[in-house]
């Protein structure tokens, strides 16, 4: 199986500390995968290795059979969009220009084509930012800015979307919208969507598959019901949990610290 995004015994050390320890897993297009785990478990590191932004010290990451780190940067950027955890926005450009940055790997010698403009329009419409297109990015609220960041990632029209904690700072309504959008991108548009999340309930409810990381090791990998067991969560997070059957899906209640 060479289709898809594969991590093969990926290991990574940062500053002498092992942050990823022989992680092996695979992703296909059309599924939404949530990577969960406590702070410092290696979620962001795994995501940046998958995105080809960090070269693993051990093991390899393959995209459709090719080693990701060896794919030319521009081709890789056309295949995968990456949404950083704390994205930097250096200049106060308007939303349309900002979203247009997502077209960078597609731009021809003479600047944006009509195709580029159409992709930007579509990304703005998908994220409901039509009314804000001409507004400076710093004048957006937190939720609007998060949508602009997602629109930037969508504008590239990549097959893969990798997002590092895209729900940080979003209120419950916007968080729900965003996860819903990710699910729709995976199921309706056939993208491979990989997100790191802290909200276990949202992960359990929306993700097709959940990866649980604990101190650099992949300790669970499967459908939410199988991966997010009370035993696994107790080991990884050090908390007792109980999964309830909620009205809209499973609800993971955090009870107390493990003694």
């Amino acid at each position, binding site marked *: 199986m060479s289709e898809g995004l594969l991590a093969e015994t990926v290991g990574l050390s940062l500053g002498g500390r092992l942050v990823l320890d022989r992680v092996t897993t695979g992703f296909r297009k059309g599924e939404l995968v949530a990577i969960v785990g406590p702070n410092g478990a290696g979620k962001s590191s795994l995501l940046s290795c998958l995105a080809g932004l960090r070269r693993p010290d051990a093991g390899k990451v393959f995209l459709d059979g090719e080693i990701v780190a060896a794919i030319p940067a521009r081709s890789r950027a056309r295949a995968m969009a990456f949404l950083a955890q704390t994205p930097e926005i250096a*200049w106060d450009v308007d939303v349309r220009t900002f979203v247009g940055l997502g077209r960078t790997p597609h731009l021809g010698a003479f600047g944006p084509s009509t195709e580029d403009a159409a992709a930007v329009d579509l990304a703005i419409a998908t994220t409901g930012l039509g009314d804000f297109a001409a507004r400076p990015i710093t004048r957006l609220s937190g939720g609007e800015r998060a949508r602009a960041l997602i629109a930037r990632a969508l504008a590239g029209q990549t097959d893969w979307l990798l997002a590092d904690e895209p729900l940080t700072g979003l209120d419950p309504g916007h968080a729900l919208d965003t996860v819903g959008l990710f699910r729709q991108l995976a199921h309706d548009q056939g993208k491979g969507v990989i997100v790191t999340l802290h909200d276990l309930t949202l992960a359990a409810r929306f993700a097709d598959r959940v990866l649980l990381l604990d101190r650099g090791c992949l300790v669970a990998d499967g459908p939410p019901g199988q991966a997010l067991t009370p035993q696994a969560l107790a080991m990884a997070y050090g908390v007792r949990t109980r999964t309830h059957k909620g009205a809209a899906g499973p609800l993971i209640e955090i009870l107390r610290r493990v003694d």
Partner: protein
Amino acid sequence: MNARSPWFVCGVLAASLILLFALSLCAGRVWTPWSAWVSGGADPRGAIIFGLRLPRTILALLVGGALGLSGAALQGYTRNPLADPGALGVSSAAALGAVLTLYLGAASETGWILPATAMVGAGLGMVALLALAGVTSSIVTFILAGFIIQTVCTAGISLALNLAPNPWAVDEIVSWLMGSLADRSVEEVRIAAPGVILGSLVLLTQGRALDALTLGEQGARSLGVGLTRTRLSLAIGVSLAVGSSVAVTGVIGFVGLIVPHLLRPWVGSRPGALLWPSLLGGAALTLGADILVRLTPAAEEVKLGVAMAALGGPFFLWMLMAMRRRLA
């Protein structure tokens, strides 16, 4: 302020450059009206125009353009509106290279040694800057790295002055350091032009990378932008452009800082769209300032570098007040 198309901004700046160009050929100690131009060799004032003012004007355009463009490129790369070749120590490094040449008396032997050493100085300054700031490129590390380079280079220049064997060498170095376009000839244009033009062409290719850097280094890399190449192009472009400018005119500060800052709102803050306007704007500002300096009502004209520094102080004050208002 409404953002406009970069082409519109460039058009306005180019039109004002043409006006300034014509004015620059007329203005000075001797006013040369249009009739003196068309008379050909008959009017002695023709010699002033073509022998003195034309090279001076062209030099102002080259140097101003190089400084404005380098400032815009450095600000874009560092994502810091306070970056410019002067503030980051690149100009000082170029000046140190040139001063050492003047000090050793090697400059008079062949024309190209001075720009070459200035370019090497600027190049070493850029390399040191990028190495000291490291991959983090946070605003603070960049400013600090620039400060270190500037301090070291200024110390080196002072040391050269301190140890200079004769007063003429000191005099030559000091008057050159202040930065001026006065009494420059076709020879200086010939020395500066290749480096400025080549360096500018290199910098102008970096627009897209600078745009992508709006998302930070990781963001730019995720968009497929090779930052090693960007860094290299920036180092080469700024070294060539600033080095050859400093070699013929000495240190002229603030152009690279003021021009991109003033033009930024007009292009909607997009760093890549700021490159051409900053080149034209830098040329216009330098040429305009040089015209004013020429009209100094005193025996000795005010040095352009000094006039720019005098302009820089109030500009910083204005920036500080605007920033405080925004934060209040």
